Each structure stands twice: as structure tokens, then as C-alpha cells.
């Protein structure tokens, strides 16, 4: 499913999911949400989180084998909707995490799997391998309004069009130009090390985690508004 390790100030979340494609089903999503709760409970000023995975895939989307392993089309739709609800809960957990977050993307992220790196504050990716692929259009699926709001929080203009309306498999270099990832590196180790260093540098700023999370939620205000997630105002400056 996933594992959570603590190394000094850093929480390292490793995605394993279901099979080599690290696919997401309610059980996997629930385990990632639990891991994030543990990180939250253990967090202090100066904590940061890096999410990593190993192998060819970062996350290839929902576990469609599980979705389709039912008697009827109706039940399959229910399983799909349930998976989507669980993903939404995971996004909320990431957005409310009281520490800076970095995704180190070393493999392909497709469909629902694209959402995971994008819920992080920073994304570093491989230059030489791996693509982001929003394939809803290709699959004949409408992107839910909530997720359009999510994508609008991360990008805009022609880059947004290219992300969702062209069925493009976009490599790291291009994503860097689009402003969707922050940096690209060579090799799996290169990306993971860079991700950890970035998280370390952010951790050293020793931000107040609760305030950090509230400010972050403000950057996703449309998404949070649609979910009815209230923002807390914290107003006593600490120098």
C-alpha cells in the first residue's frame, strides 16, 4: 500500500499501491490517508514530507481490475465513484497537512494518479523517464467539476489546456516549461535525492505547520469552497 518513514525532520512516504503500477483502490487510499494522519500527529515546526515511489510507475490511476470485478455495470460504477470519493479525501488530507510537501516523481503518473503529485507543494521529476498523462478525454470520461477546480489551482491558460484537453503524455522537461513541475533531474536516485534536499531546505524554515496548511488551503480556495472546507483565520503574528 504505502510506507511512512521518519528520517530526522523528514517524513518519507513511499507509494507501493497495488502491483507495480501502484494503482489506487479504497484500501490503498485509506492506508495513505492513515500514513498522512500519523505524519500530522508527529509533526512539529520544521517537519516536511517527501513522497516517493520506485520503478517504472509513480501511480497509474485507479485499480480498474477491482472496479470491474463485479456482477454489473452499475456496481462497477459504484466502485469507481467510491474510489473517487476516497481520492478526494486523500487530496484533502494532503492539502491540510501541516508541513511543506514535495513529490519526487520517478515514473509514470496517469489518470487519477496525476492528482497525487499535484497535491504536493513542489514537484520534482525525472528528465529522462516518466510522463504525466491526464487521459480522461481518451477514456471518454468527463473530468469532475471538483477536479477541474483542482487543476485550475495548479495551472492556467494554455498549459491547463495542454494538461487536460489534448490527451498528451507530457515529459518532465515539458512540464518544467509549463510550470507544472519545479525541477527535473536524471535518474531515479537523482530525483529522490533532490526531492529530499528540497524538503530539507523547506523544513529548515521552521514554519508554523497549522498556519502553513491554512495558507495553502487559500491557494486551493475554489476546490475547498466546492467541498465546503472552511478556512481558519490565525491572527497573532509570531516573529
Amino acid at each position, binding site marked *: 500500500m504505502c510506507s511512512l518513514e521518519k528520517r530526522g525532520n523528514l517524513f518519507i512516504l513511499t507509494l507501493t499501491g497495488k502491483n507495480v503500477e501502484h494503482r489506487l483502490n479504497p484500501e490503498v487510499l485509506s492506508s495513505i490517508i492513515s500514513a498522512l494522519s500519523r505524519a500530522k500527529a508527529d509533526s512539529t515546526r520544521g517537519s516536511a514530507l517527501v513522497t516517493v515511489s520506485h520503478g517504472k510507475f509513480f501511480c497509474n490511476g485507479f485499480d480498474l481490475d477491482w472496479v470491474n470485478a463485479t456482477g454489473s455495470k452499475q456496481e462497477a460504477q459504484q466502485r469507481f465513484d467510491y474510489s473517487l470519493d476516497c481520492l478526494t479525501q486523500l487530496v484533502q488530507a494532503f492539502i491540510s497537512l501541516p508541513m511543506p510537501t514535495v513529490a519526487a516523481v520517478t515514473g509514470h503518473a496517469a489518470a487519477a494518479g496525476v492528482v497525487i503529485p499535484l497535491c504536493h507543494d*513542489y514537484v520534482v521529476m525525472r528528465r529522462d523517464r516518466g510522463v504525466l498523462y491526464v487521459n480522461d478525454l481518451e477514456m471518454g470520461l468527463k473530468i469532475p467539476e471538483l477536479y477541474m477546480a483542482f487543476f485550475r489551482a495548479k495551472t492556467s491558460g494554455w498549459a491547463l489546456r495542454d494538461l487536460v484537453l489534448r490527451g498528451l503524455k507530457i515529459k518532465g522537461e515539458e512540464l518544467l516549461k509549463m510550470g507544472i513541475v519545479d525541477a527535473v533531474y536524471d535518474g531515479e536516485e537523482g530525483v529522490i535525492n533532490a526531492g529530499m534536499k528540497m524538503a530539507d531546505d523547506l523544513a529548515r524554515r521552521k*514554519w508554523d505547520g497549522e*498556519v502553513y496548511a491554512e*495558507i*495553502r488551503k487559500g*491557494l486551493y*480556495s475554489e476546490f475547498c469552497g466546492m467541498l465546503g472546507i472552511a478556512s481558519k483565520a490565525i*491572527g*497573532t*503574528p509570531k516573529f
Partner: protein
Amino acid sequence: MCTLEKRGKLFILTLTGEDQHRFNPDLISSLLDLLSQVKAQATCGSVLITQAQGKFFSYGFDLDWAQAAGSERGAAKRLQDMADLFKPVIATLLSLPMPTIAAITGHAVAAGFTLALSHDYLIMRKDRGILWMPEVDIAVTLPDYINALFKEKIGDASVRRDLFLRGLKMKGDEAEKRGVVKAAYDGEAEVREASVCLAENLGKRKWHGEVYAEIRKGLYPQLSAILGLSHKVYAIARL
């Protein structure tokens, strides 16, 4: 504190003195007063330049005044009060019936950056001065109207993330490159000259002020809604 000068069709609003031009209720009140005078005297071809003397454009809310309340709760309340008092300044600028230019010759921080960003055009120094949102560093959250202002004025999500979640101190050349300001120049005189030149060019177009304001509000629907600004439909054709 602040003065208003009229030079032909040009209104020049100046934050005076060599201090940090911190916004406390008195200064906010004076600003509102002067802006109403600008609005009352507006004609076709009017333009506003907002500028400041000294090393600071404005360093934001008067935190000393807030802390003089004597308690943490009192300070938080004073800060909230100033945020509430400041909202009409932004609303007035957003509905001002003429083009507006911020001539940023010093540091524009927090509410000071917000004031600058509420103008149609930002011109800044390349060699001195920063744009900075320090809220994450001093552990306070941002009011909803400031979130909406930055979201709708700054299209680049990674810039918003860098400003709000990293507390980036952005210098003029980066601000120009990343599209936060229109242009950056070396030297105070150059910034003032460029602002006047731009103002003259805009003024020459002799736009219908009320229509200009309505179109401007349409650019920022979320912000307009939060500020309680309504829309009017104009149908004055000048062919």
C-alpha cells in the same frame, strides 16, 4: 502620511516621509479619503499613479500598533480590524474610473504589496526593493480578499505558491520575468519617469471611466464578489 497632487489629468497619490508607511487606521482612513477625492474629480483621460517616498513603498499593517493592544488576543483583533478597514481601499481601487499605476520604488510588503497589486500596472525598481508576503514566516493567515486578489491577478500558480508558501522576497528582475510587474527599471527616477510616461499614454486614449471600471471588475469576478462590488451594464457606443 499621504498627499494627493493633480498634474493636468494625472492624479499622484504619495505615501510621504522616509518611514515604512505602515498602514494603521489613520493612514488607511486618509488613503480612502484621498481616493474618494480622485473618484469625485475623475474625467475622461484621468489616470492615477500611487507612489511613495523613501526606501519603502509600504511595509504593510502597523504591527506595533496591533501589539500595543497589550495582549495576544487584543493584537489579533487589531490586526483583523485593520484587515477589515483596508478592504474598502482595495474595493475603491478596483472600481476607480480610470487606469491606475503603482510606481514601486521601495519595498512592498504584505498589505503594501497588496496595495500595489490592486493597481492595473505595476512598475518597480530592478536595483532596489522587494515584493514580499511574509505571512507564512510570521505565522498569520491571509484574509479572503487578499487570496482572491493574488489568485485573479497572478495567473502563474507557481508564483503564487512561491509568494505565499515560501515567503519569497522577489526582486524587480524576477518580478518582471515572472509577470508580477509590467516592467522593472534601474533607479528611482527611471521608475517615476516610466510611470508618468505610461500614464500619459493611457490618458491619451480618453477612455470612458465608468466603462473602464466595469470592464476591470469583470477581470476579477471572485475578488469583486468578495468586495461586494456589483456590476453595471453600459451600452455607450462611440464608433
